[in-house]
Structures are given as structure tokens and as C-alpha cells.
């Protein structure tokens, strides 16, 4: 509790004791004799002012500033009204109850703010910089790019960089939600915000603090609040009209019926006071953004950054998701997946291919050499065995291995040279190998499907995504194979970056307005598509800064399974927000109605105001819980 809250609590207790004493005296007849005089309201003014002096002060001050529909003012009028009709104890009780509610409310909001702040507690406070063998603690802001910083066990990594010395396990949970620590050794990149585990690391920084991951994330999350959801805007607009309308109703209720029907003013003024108490829209105005804030917090806890309440709202309505293949559904790493030797052993075929591709830096050649190194325990192919390598653009290569002419390339190369080969139907890139005119087999290289991609697709189907589409610049066969394996509904292959935008636009045109389309990509070449889709989802750790900038949702650890989890979080958040709106409006409407017919009292009115507000806040806090 803050000092302000403690002071308020003290005032509440003091006023309560005074009030209880008075109430007891009045009802046991000890105040008899002064009931008709002005002394009774004067006595009741003591607890009233104890609890409500600040309200009256603020009300008067705000009225001078022209704030007519101010909640302090409305409370003042309502309680004065109660005094005017002789309901002194009710007047005091309403003020007391109102302040208790406000206290509760500020406590609950403070708590939720705290828990969100704790969750976002990833900001490093210092960096250890090494200068002439001495470690000095400096502000991460002051560290220049290229400096060597030292991170001891248990410390938070202050800046992005590359490890130059040391080895350790790094806890990335705060950023990615991943609980298994990651190993980092010399040469590995580390990102700021993670916690260093067991060993001391020396890191050469690659970014300034403002550009480092942790600063970017904090900025994103802080700004998330300013992009408001439709529901939030609706509530703010509603609140603008709600208070004046209810207040005018109160005035009408106080004046018209007694004039028309005649009779006493007392009961009608009391009913009008009930209206005034209920006229504050605070429960709604607090609980809606708080719910969204909680939802965004819950998502960031599992390593997904949502850049605004509006995107969280859109994710809940997502029915179509478009994936970029390479780097999103697949790892974007090419590997030798199949060997089809013809007349020789598999190892021989691989060795021959590795020799043949020995000089090339093409990704395919690299992956063949890697496969060879893996099979032969790290041995490099003996480059002395080859000579006279020639690149045949669009076909492959021609080299002399041990003096024998060896061809490596596509089917066209084989048929061009009149070599009869066995065509290979596998998905992926096929390298045919022939020596001295004899076909020796084929090596298939394909991209590897990302772990969990299949579960991700089926999980998305479960949460109600109707269509999963995959776009790729890759060949038809390779695309079909991946799509078949993962359970993708629609595939478009051999696309240029511009075609991807066109495909997404076509899908956007074809879908009903209420449904949303998401595009998930690693951000290499697809920033335009990320912006064009209703929801752009980028891979955070692989993706470029530009992609993180362009995207609306960022998966910090590139795990596509998290998309379905975010859909669930967003649905739950929206459900909570809707519950709050319905509950708050429902209770208010009911009490207004009962109040108009004289069936509700001030107590119920105060409950409909602050009580509902507290319940709505507690409900909104549920959105913060990660699954």
C-alpha cells in the first residue's frame, strides 16, 4: 500500500467508528429529543466530513474548472440530497462505502500494475565493462558498440553481442517463455534481457542499448497500450454520453413526477440521488483496457509480443493464416535427406558429390559437404584429388576426380550429355552424379521442417482457424511435400515477393469482413506482406529488425506453435472484457431501473458503482494469467 492509500484507510476506519457510534446511539434512543432539531444533521456531518472532505473540495474545484459531470461532484450532490431529505445516516454511509470502494479500486489497479511491471522486469540496470583489466559498472546506455563487457553468473545480459570468451547456459525465459536454458560459447550471439546461468562470459557488443533487443521489447510493450481495440474505443465513447444522460435523467426524475403527480419531493429526490451515484462509468473505463493489458502481458509471458490491443482483438477473429515456407514452417537450412546410389555404395556417392562440389559456396554444395563431414567424422574431402572444375550455369558442375570426368547437376545436364539416369521424384533439390558417362546415383537435398510445425497447424485448426495457406518461392514438388506433411490446405509455389502480396490481397478480398487474415513470415523479403495482412506475425530471433518493426505480433523464439496459444489468450481476454462490459452495464441498468421505481436504495447504488468496478478489475486480472 502507498502512503496515500494508508492515509485513506485510516480515514475510513475513523469515519466508520464515528458513524457506527452515532448509528448505535440513534437506534437505541439515546439521541431522542434532538431529532427534530438541526443538531442531528450537524452531528452526522462529523463523520461525513471526515470521510468526504476531499471529495467536496475536489467537486468545488472541478466545477470552477467547468467539469460538470465529474464523479466527485455527482457524489457530493447525491449525498447532499440524502441529507436534504433527512436520510443523514444514509448520506454518510454512501460516502463511506464509496471511499472504501475507491480505496479497493486503487489497490487492485496498483497490484495489477505491479504484476505487469514485474513481468516486464527484464531491463538490465548496469553493464560490467573491462578497461585495462579492471571491471567498472556503467549504465548500459553508455556502452559503445564493439566494447567488451563481462557478464557474471546470475547477471542479466545488458546488450546484444557476440561471445568472445567463456561458456555458459543462458536463461531466455523472460524473453521467450522457453524454460530450457540455451548454451552459449565463443562465437554465439547473445541477446539482452536474458539471464546468464553458470559461467562468466565476455561479450563484444554489437548494438547500442537503444537498438538492443531488450530496449525494443520494452518500447513495444509500453506503446501497446496506445493502439486501442475497437471495444476500448466504444467504451470511451459510451462513457462520454453515459454520464450526462444519466445525470439529466436524475434531474428529470427529481423534478417532473412531483410536479405532475403531486405529493412529496423527498422520495423522488432520493431516487434521483441513486441515479447520480450510478452515473460514473469508471468500472467500464478501467476494466476494459486493464483486461487487454493483462492479455498482452500474458502473451509476452510465453514469449509473444503483441503490439497493441487492437491486434489482440484481431487475433481472436483470425480464420485464415498464410505462412511463408522457408524460415517459418521450415528451418531454412538445407540438408541432404536422401541418397539414391546406383551401382556404388551410398558413402561413395556422397564422397564423390562432396569432392565435386568442393569449391562451390552455393548452399546446396555446402550442405553436401556438411553431410559428408557428418558421415566421415569431420574429415574434409581431399581436394588434391580434383582438378579442372568448371561451372555450367543452369546445369551444374563438371570436374575431374582422380582424373575421371565427373558431372554433378540437374536432370537436364544428364540428358544433354546423353547419360541415362533414373529420374528421382523426391521433393527437394536433386543432384545427379555421373562419372565417365555412367550414372552413379542422385543426392536429394531438402529443407527441414521446423520442429512442432505440424502440431502448430493442427492446434490452429483446433482453435478455429479455417484455412492454412502456404506461400513459397520454392519449386512445386518441394512445396507440396511440405504442405502434405504439415496438413496445409492451400499451396502456392514459385512465387516472387510481389506475387506473395498479390496472393494475400486475393485472400483478403475473398474473406468476410468480420474474419481476419494473418501472415506469418521470417521477414526476409516479406515486410510488405506483413504490413498488408490484417495481422502480421514475424519470427523474432531469426527475423530482421525490419520485420519486427513491420509486424504486429512477434514470436520471440520463432516457435509457430505459440500462434495457437496467442489465439487462445486473445479469445479469453476478449471473453473477460465482454463479461465485464455486460456485467457492469447490466448491474447499472438494473439498479437504475429499480431505483426509478423506488425499489433500490443508496447502498445498492454504491455497489453498482464501486462494487462493480472492483469485481470487474478482479475479473480483468484473470487475463494476465498465462496458460
Amino acid at each position, binding site marked *: 500500500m502507498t502512503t496515500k492509500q494508508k492515509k485513506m484507510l485510516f480515514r475510513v476506519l475513523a469515519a466508520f467508528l464515528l458513524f457506527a457510534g452515532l448509528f448505535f446511539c440513534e437506534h437505541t434512543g439515546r439521541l431522542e429529543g434532538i431529532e427534530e432539531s438541526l443538531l442531528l444533521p450537524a452531528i452526522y456531518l462529523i463523520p461525513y466530513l471526515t470521510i468526504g472532505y476531499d471529495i467536496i473540495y*475536489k467537486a468545488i474545484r472541478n466545477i470552477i*474548472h*467547468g467539469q460538470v459531470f465529474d*464523479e466527485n461532484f455527482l457524489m457530493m450532490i447525491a449525498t447532499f440530497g440524502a441529507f436534504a431529505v433527512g436520510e443523514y445516516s444514509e448520506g454518510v454511509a454512501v460516502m463511506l462505502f464509496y471511499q472504501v470502494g475507491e480505496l479497493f479500486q486503487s489497490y487492485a489497479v496498483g497490484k495489477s*500494475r505491479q504484476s505487469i511491471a514485474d513481468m516486464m522486469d527484464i531491463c538490465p540496470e548496469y553493464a560490467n565493462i573491462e578497461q585495462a583489466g579492471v571491471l567498472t559498472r556503467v549504465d548500459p546506455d553508455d556502452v559503445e558498440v564493439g566494447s567488451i563487457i563481462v557478464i557474471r553468473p546470475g547477471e542479466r545480459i545488458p546488450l546484444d553481442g557476440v561471445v568472445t570468451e567463456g561458456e555458459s547456459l543462458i536463461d531466455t525465459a523472460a524473453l521467450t517463455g522457453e524454460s530450457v536454458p540455451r548454451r552459449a560459447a565463443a562465437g554465439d550471439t547473445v541477446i539482452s534481457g536474458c539471464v546468464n546461468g553458470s559461467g562468466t562470459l565476455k561479450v563484444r557488443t554489437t548494438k547500442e542499448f537503444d537498438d538492443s533487443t531488450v530496449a525494443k521489447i520494452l518500447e513495444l510493450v509500453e506503446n501497446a497500450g496506445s493502439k486501442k481495440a475497437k471495444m476500448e474505443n466504444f467504451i470511451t465513447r459510451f462513457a462520454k454520453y453515459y454520464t450526462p444522460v444519466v445525470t439529466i435523467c436524475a434531474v428529470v426524475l427529481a423534478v417532473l413526477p412531483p410536479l405532475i403527480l403531486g405529493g412529496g419531493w423527498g422520495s423522488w429526490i432520493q431516487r434521483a440521488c441513486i441515479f447520480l451515484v450510478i452515473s460514473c462509468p469508471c468500472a467500464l473505463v478501467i476494466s476494459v483496457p486493464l483486461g487487454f493489458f493483462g492479455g498482452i502481458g500474458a502473451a509476452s509471458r510465453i514469449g509473444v509480443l503483441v503490439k497493441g490491443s487492437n491486434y489482440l482483438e484481431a487475433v481472436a477473429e483470425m480464420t485464415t493464416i498464410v505462412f511463408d515456407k522457408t524460415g517459418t514452417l521450415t528451418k531454412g537450412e538445407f540438408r541432404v535427406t536422401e541418397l539414391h546410389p546406383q551401382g556404388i555404395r551410398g558413402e561413395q556417392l556422397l564422397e564423390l558429390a562432396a569432392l565435386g562440389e568442393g569449391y562451390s559456396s552455393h548452399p546446396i554444395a555446402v550442405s553436401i559437404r556438411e553431410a559428408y563431414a557428418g558421415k566421415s567424422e569431420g574429415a574434409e574431402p581431399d581436394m588434391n584429388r580434383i582438378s579442372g572444375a568448371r561451372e555450367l550455369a543452369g546445369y551444374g558442375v563438371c570436374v575431374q576426380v582422380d582424373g575421371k570426368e565427373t558431372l554433378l547437376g540437374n536432370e537436364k545436364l544428364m540428358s544433354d550429355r546423353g547419360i541415362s539416369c533414373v529420374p528421382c521424384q523426391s521433393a527437394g533439390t536433386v543432384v545427379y552424379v555421373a562419372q565417365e558417362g555412367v550414372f552413379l546415383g542422385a543426392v536429394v537435398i531438402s529443407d527441414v521442417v521446423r520442429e512442432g510445425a505440424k502440431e502448430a497447424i493442427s492446434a490452429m485448426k483446433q482453435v478455429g482457424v479455417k484455412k492454412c495457406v502456404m506461400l513459397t518461392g520454392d519449386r512445386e514438388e518441394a512445396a507440396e511435400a511440405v504442405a502434405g506433411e504439415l496438413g496445409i490446405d492451400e499451396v502456392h509455389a514459385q512465387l516472387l515477393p510481389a506475387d506473395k502480396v498479390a496472393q494475400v490481397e486475393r485472400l483478403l478480398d475473398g474473406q468476410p469482413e468480420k474474419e481476419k487474415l494473418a501472415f506469418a513470415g521470417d521477414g526476409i523479403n516479406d515486410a510488405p506482406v506483413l504490413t498488408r495482412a490484417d495481422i502480421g506475425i514475424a519470427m523474432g530471433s531469426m527475423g530482421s529488425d525490419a520485420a519486427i518493426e513491420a509486424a504486429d505480433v512477434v514470436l520471440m523464439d520463432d516457435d509457430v506453435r505459440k500462434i495457437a496459444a496467442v489465439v487462445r489468450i486473445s479469445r479469453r481476454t476478449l471473453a473477460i472484457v465482454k463479461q465485464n462490459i455486460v456485467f457492469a452495464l447490466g448491474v447499472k441498468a438494473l439498479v437504475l431501473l429499480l431505483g426509478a421505481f423506488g425499489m433500490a436504495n443508496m447502498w445498492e447504488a454504491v455497489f453498482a458503482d464501486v462494487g462493480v468496478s472492483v469485481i470487474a478489475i478482479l475479473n480483468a486480472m484473470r487475463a494476465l494469467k498465462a496458460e
Partner: protein
Amino acid sequence: MKKKFKMEDLDCANCAAKMEEAIKKIPGVKDASVSFMTQKMMVEAEEKDFDGIMKQVVSVCAKVEPDCKILI
């Protein structure tokens, strides 16, 4: 340009909404948001007019909620 300010004693959510609306009406303000949850304010305006605009921001906010301080 956009600038962010911390706010102190912003106690009511409805006031935050009222402030936001009032700030958006100040001439020269391109966009503004007042977040009750983070107790922060964001104002976007041309750099050369910023100081003048901020004076008006402070005064409109004081009208809505005199207890609330903007830390500039």
C-alpha cells in the same frame, strides 16, 4: 515527433480518457494518448511547436484532474 511523459497521481481511468480527448483538441497536436495503466502520456506534434503545446497540455490536464502531475 513523439514524446513520452510520466504522470503522477493519475487516479481515475475516466479522467485519463478525458485528458486524452482534451489534448487531441489542442491545435498542432497530431496524436496523443494517456494510459491509465502505465501512467504515461504520449504526445505527437511538430518539434518547433512542442514547448508551446506542452504548456497547453499541462493546463488542460490540470483542468481535468488538478492533482495529477506531468513530469516533464
